[in-house]
């Protein structure tokens, strides 16, 4: 009961901060509210008893990726004033369409697979990190390897770009 | 004959840096147990070496007469132009007929070079070992004849900091104030 109240609070914060990310014109504020959004998502994961995912959410997204984002924002000094360009109507319409498409896709995926509100599966609750590792190396081995290959390509590309300048 | 200069080639251990780091840590650890060199100033006082040039004094004869004859050699020698003397006829009998009516030294201008000491034909002005005579106002740091004579009384035994270490330490008052 009190947990569901907590869920609504945290969910509200998550949605609110997500909207704030989009609406704010100050890039640093956007980044901070995105971090806040990640934190509230992590709390929601905790409520689902998915501890590993919750901690990884903070560790990887809030702790590493957003720090890089902030780093770049500060390095390019986008922080102050409105450094963001204004979009024309065609661009706005296109982006709106894409966003709608994205949401419809997610919605269809959710209904199709397990219904709107799936229950946490037993094995993920109890085992901590073991079922995650097992799933990654058996059922999802191909996507996992493809993702790592993609990261490797990006890494080599970065090294190449950095080397050429010198 | 040409000399062969060997350039420094770091060995494997040098490149690892860890032995050097350990040596550095050992050095600081040794210092951890070494005797501290700090002088706890207001409680203990640093005793300056022989010939230290601190606060000035005006010397007196044993019977109390001032040695200075107001010849103004010192103020002429002074590179900082900080000695101001007003001479007058001496009130005492015998020998020297001049003496300083006023003798002011601006301690804020003085650079403690000791030229006045060297210029003085009567060995009347001398620099003492007193170094702690700070004060709150500029006016207080202009020392007059009475003050300078009082410094002589304080330092004539050459042991201002050794003898008076404890009694003088507690009072912040400098001889100038009196």
């Amino acid at each position, binding site marked *: 009961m009190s947990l569901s109240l907590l869920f609504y609070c945290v969910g509200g914060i998550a949605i609110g901060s997500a909207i704030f990310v989009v609406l704010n014109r100050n890039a640093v504020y956007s980044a901070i509210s995105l971090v806040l959004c990640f934190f509230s998502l992590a709390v929601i994961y905790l409520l689902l008893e998915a501890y590993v995912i919750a901690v990884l959410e903070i560790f990887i997204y809030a702790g590493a990726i957003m720090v890089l984002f902030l*780093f770049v924002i500060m390095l390019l000094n986008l922080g102050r004033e409105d450094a963001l360009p204004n979009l024309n109507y065609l661009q706005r319409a296109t982006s709106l369409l894409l966003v709608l498409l994205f949401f419809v896709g997610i919605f269809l995926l959710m209904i199709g697979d397990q219904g709107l509100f799936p229950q946490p599966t037993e094995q993920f609750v109890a085992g901590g990190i073991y079922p995650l590792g097992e799933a990654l190396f058996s059922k999802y081995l191909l996507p996992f390897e493809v993702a790592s290959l993609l990261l490797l390509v990006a890494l080599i590309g970065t090294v190449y770009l950095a080397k050429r300048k010198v | 004959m040409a000399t062969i200069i060997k350039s420094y080639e770091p060995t494997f251990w040098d490149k690892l840096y860890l032995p050097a780091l350990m040596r550095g840590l050992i050095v600081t650890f040794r210092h951890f147990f070494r005797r501290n060199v700090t002088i706890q100033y207001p409680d203990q006082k640093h005793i300056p070496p022989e010939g230290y040039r601190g606060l000035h004094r005006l010397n007196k004869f044993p019977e109390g007469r001032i040695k200075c004859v107001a010849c103004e050699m010192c103020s002429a020698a002074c590179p900082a132009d900080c000695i101001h003397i007003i001479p007058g006829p001496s009130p005492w009998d015998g020998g020297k007929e001049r003496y300083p009516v006023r003798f002011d030294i601006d301690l804020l201008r003085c650079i403690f070079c000791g030229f006045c000491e060297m210029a003085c034909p009567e060995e009347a002005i001398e620099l003492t070992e007193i170094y702690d005579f700070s004060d709150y106002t500029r006016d207080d740091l202009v020392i007059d004849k009475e003050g300078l004579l009082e410094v002589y009384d304080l330092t004539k035994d050459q042991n201002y900091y050794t003898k008076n270490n404890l009694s003088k330490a507690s009072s912040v008052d400098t001889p100038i104030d009196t």
Partner: protein
Amino acid sequence: MDLLGFTIIVVKVLVVFAATMLGVLVMIYAERRVSAFMQDRVGPNRVGFKGVLQPIADGIKFLMKEDLVPERVDKPIFILAPAILLIPALMTFAVIPFGSSINLFGREIALQVADVNVGILYVLALTSISVYGIVLAGWSSNNKYSLLGGLRSSAQLISYELAMGLAVVSIILLAGSLRLNDIITDQQGSFLSWNIFRQPLAFLIFLIAVYAETNRLPFDLSEAEQELVGGYHTEYSSMKFAMFFMAEYANMITAAALTVTLFFGGWDVPLLDEGSLGLFGALLSVLSFILKVAFFLFLFIWVRWTFPRFRYDQLMRLGWKVMLPLALFNIFLTGGYLTIKALG
């Protein structure tokens, strides 16, 4: 949860919080005294016996100082940044076990605030959060030196977090668990079962990375008084400035505790079975934990007053070209060893 259980948790939280804050006070005093001794000086010795009340005097001074907020700073973030830094620093200690368990009121109480089954990940996650405090403080100050300090620290933390995480992975491989208590149990026995003897390379990498993560010399590039004035806390004064320092020392205490937990057997007293000794054993384990942590805190200070600061490019080179490959190699070695052991 019943009332007793709740009370026990509250007491544990309070004790750990108070111990950390006390540790911060002790560290402020120790840092000044030890640094003084290492430079053949005396250090603060006027306030209280041998100056032990100096940190309190410092605290009062910080409280009385004017709390300046410069005109052109980004106010909300400027005020928030010290808190963002301090809170994760204080939160991290929650999962670190500081002793074996004791029996009180007819139940077994683990000397640890929360026994999270992903404990080590929790610690790593929170340490990665603390960089926000520094970065945002640097950015919101509207001062080029502060901004540079913030930028440096964000780049530095990302570089060293990787090496640190990978060094920890080899420990996790050995223990087979992310729970800190399991890692300690895995190291129990004689001296030689401590992870520093089983994973010396990982220990070295972890120790260096920890110094970078806590922004201590030789990696304090985000402060770098000589070049950046004071780095990210140039514009801060009064209690906000004090909070930065409290966070730094709290981070050091947590880092030392984590080093002890991962590599020195945590609260484990070598060659002794704490469980069989009852309450005395538990006290002994707490004492051993405190002593080990104290040694690492001393090491922090010792290193600070021994080594000069790294240059920025040297820091990056060490992180990416030396520590990261070494850590990966170490994981490879550990994995190979475990595979061979599993095969027979």
